[in-house]
């Protein structure tokens, strides 16, 4: 069996490892264009902040790939021919596959703001973004971060370590309004305040203004206020990377559509991770999961199916974690931003405001 995987992110790499374990004889090829070896996207911020170097965020040493007979191709897959079971590469090469896994991840979302293509406006998703941020934030005095989610707070922290004043625009009335209840959001807000980050709630970006060289000079908020700045970070989320999928007859919506076995509409073509959209997500689950953890779980699951052990993807008990400056966050199960009326919520907070615990439960009978 020759398995070809497009994308060497956590999804593709987990699938490759699992297939190697299940089928020691399989031939496995990983095609990816961003980096020669798998690296941890989640750790990009630590490279910018100087905690780590690029080689430190590679989860495996370079010998790992060869010793486990995982063939690496550094290039872009430009076209997919499902009838011929072939993938066309930017290098001019064509690879034939028995099974193909699309694990192409995401791209940063842009909302179509005027001025969003100016120099100094960017998202943060991959290595090119990191290099660009490194280049464009040198010697500047103020940056504006758009988006009150996880990437938004990371960008603010990154600027903070270079002593660049940061303003964060948050659409909701509190931080990460879609996920955090107000009490927890207040704790994050405290972190922002302690780190001198200027956060504007209920504020959106209206327009980005440039100077004569095509560089960012200021932004205008939805309130009409003009804020001078030399860099704008977009942290408003990511959207599935469909560039390869769209070269073929694979069915897509926002992401690549898959069933619960993570199969696409084409034979022997699978999709998993950030780029996949579940046709029928489980109750209370979202159709597109954009997390490191879900990428890993989907990669492991799809590997079983590819190896002839059809395994439906089950999310299991939801969990996630993050860190907001110095504040760690962990969550297990469903803890929505607004507690539903049929659920009781117990919330405890330490007087210092440095830690807190929330447990949601059904009032009758009183259980989780």
């Amino acid at each position, binding site marked *: 069996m020759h398995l070809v995987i497009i994308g060497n992110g956590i999804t593709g790499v987990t699938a490759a490892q699992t297939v190697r374990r299940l089928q020691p004889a399989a031939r496995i090829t990983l095609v990816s264009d*961003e980096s*020669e070896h798998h690296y941890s996207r989640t750790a990009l911020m630590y490279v910018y902040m100087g905690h780590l170097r690029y080689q430190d965020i590679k989860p495996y040493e370079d010998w790992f790939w060869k010793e486990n007979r995982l063939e690496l191709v550094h290039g872009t897959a430009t076209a997919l021919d499902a009838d011929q079971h072939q993938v066309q590469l930017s290098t001019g090469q064509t690879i034939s596959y028995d099974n193909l896994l699309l694990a192409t991840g995401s791209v940063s979302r842009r909302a179509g703001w005027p001025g969003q293509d100016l120099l100094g406006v960017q998202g943060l998703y991959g290595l090119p973004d990191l290099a660009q941020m490194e280049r464009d934030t040198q010697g500047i005095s103020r940056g504006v971060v758009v988006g009150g989610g996880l990437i938004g707070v990371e960008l603010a922290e990154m600027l903070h370590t270079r002593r660049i004043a940061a303003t964060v625009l948050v659409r909701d009335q509190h931080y990460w309004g879609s996920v955090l209840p107000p009490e927890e959001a207040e704790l994050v807000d405290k972190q922002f305040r302690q780190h001198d980050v200027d956060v504007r709630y209920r504020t959106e970006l209206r327009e980005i203004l440039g100077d004569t060289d095509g560089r960012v000079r200021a932004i205008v908020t939805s309130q009409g206020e003009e804020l001078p700045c030399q860099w704008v970070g977009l942290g408003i989320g990511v959207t599935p990377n469909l560039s390869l999928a769209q070269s073929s007859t694979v069915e897509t919506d926002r992401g690549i559509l898959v069933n619960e076995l993570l199969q696409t509409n084409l034979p022997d073509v699978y999709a998993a991770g950030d780029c996949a959209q579940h046709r029928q997500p489980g109750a209370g689950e979202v159709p597109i999961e954009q997390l490191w953890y879900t990428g890993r779980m989907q990669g492991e699951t799809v590997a079983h199916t590819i190896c002839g052990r059809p395994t439906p993807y089950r999310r299991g008990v939801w969990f996630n974690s993050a860190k907001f400056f110095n504040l760690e966050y962990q969550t297990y199960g469903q803890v929505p931003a607004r507690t539903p009326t049929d659920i009781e919520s117990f919330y405890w907070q330490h007087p210092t405001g440095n830690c807190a615990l929330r447990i949601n439960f059904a009032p009758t009978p009183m259980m989780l």
Partner: protein
Amino acid sequence: MEVTSDHSFALAQAPLPVTDAKEKATLAAVALGLLALLGAAFDDDGERARLSMYVALGLISGGTLAWAWYKFGQGEAGVKQNNLWLRASTSRGAIAWVTGLVLTGFYVLLYWFPQYLENLIRTLDPFSQALRNRAADQWFLYGTFYTLAVLLMGGRALWKYRHSRYQLIRTLSVMFFQLGFAFLLPGLLLFFQQPEFYFSYFWPLKYDYLFPGGVADLVKNGGLGVFMVFWGAIMSLVATPILTYFYGKRWYCSWVCGCGGLAETAGDPYRHLSDKSRAAWRWEVRLVYPILALIVLITVLLWVNQLYGSFLGEIGNSLNKFYGFAIGAVFSGVVGVGFYPIMGNRVWCRFGCPMAAYLGLLQKHFSRFRITTNGGQCISCGNCSNVCEMGIDVKQYAQRGEPIIRASCVGCGMCSTACPRGVLNLENAPERVGIKHRNSFTPIRCGY
């Protein structure tokens, strides 16, 4: 998308935020202090040299503490690693090489050319008289500098890690043992005409404590000497296995030991420099266990000679001489500390220390200690591996949801402190088997 290869992916080196005036002032004080120290070293006039020395110690101490407070003592408590790999001093830049050369040079003078340190040694005479009732020698100079380094940089560690109670208590512990057990107490023993004995060092690290010659020397001193021999033997052969069974090797390496104490305080800025590669791990195994075997062999040979007459000739003694030079002086001193800024702060502990090897074997096979990983929360960011001074690639275990049971782990707890996802925890729980592995996948080959 732009194609970036691993090799070409080098970020345009960011200019660091400029060191501000206040920080510069504290560093200037330290630099002046070092200059005054140099002055004292070259001044043949005893009075003046002593004055220089006091000025030097004052400036270095004040400057270091002020700098540490300024850098780490202010603002919110939390992980403070910014620019670690960007600064020349902590990323094998020019400053690091100079620091390494100076340290190495100092050790070379100390071991083989103490005559060049004579002026400095003499400046400590009054202090040595007061503490030990005798003139200072090169080892007293060394002990004073060493203890001062542990205390001053211990202050820095206390500020830097003040968000972690584990780190606070552990740092206080190494400071206490260095000052009390490895400096003041041996001095006081001398004052009372007793043998200079270190209650916090044991065979096989302090190998001569169980050599026939060492034992004989101690026993000569009557009751207290006999107790010291007894203490040394019990600690090495009975207490060590028991304590390691319950707490892991950390009870010694990162809580009590003086070498560990220096590594955890003065060496803390260099902990990330230890090599995490599999190749380094292979060197570790190749070196540290043979060294343990060698010192055990030497001990046995010497005892055999002692008990059955010297039919083995001088083998034991010559081996001992060789060991003292190659391992005791060159490895533990010159390389062990001199190379801090280049190879990390635990070079000796990791590649050379027979005590660490002995404790490590116990920890791996007969101990409750381990670092547990919390389910599937790891994001493979690599912060844990980065801060591991023993060069363990911690994330290899964490990203697979496996507990870390490694001979070399000294239990400093920094991986747990640095992890942004709360994945790691040091535990002494009774059951080691049946630890749940959440991530069922196990990559096929990981070395180790």
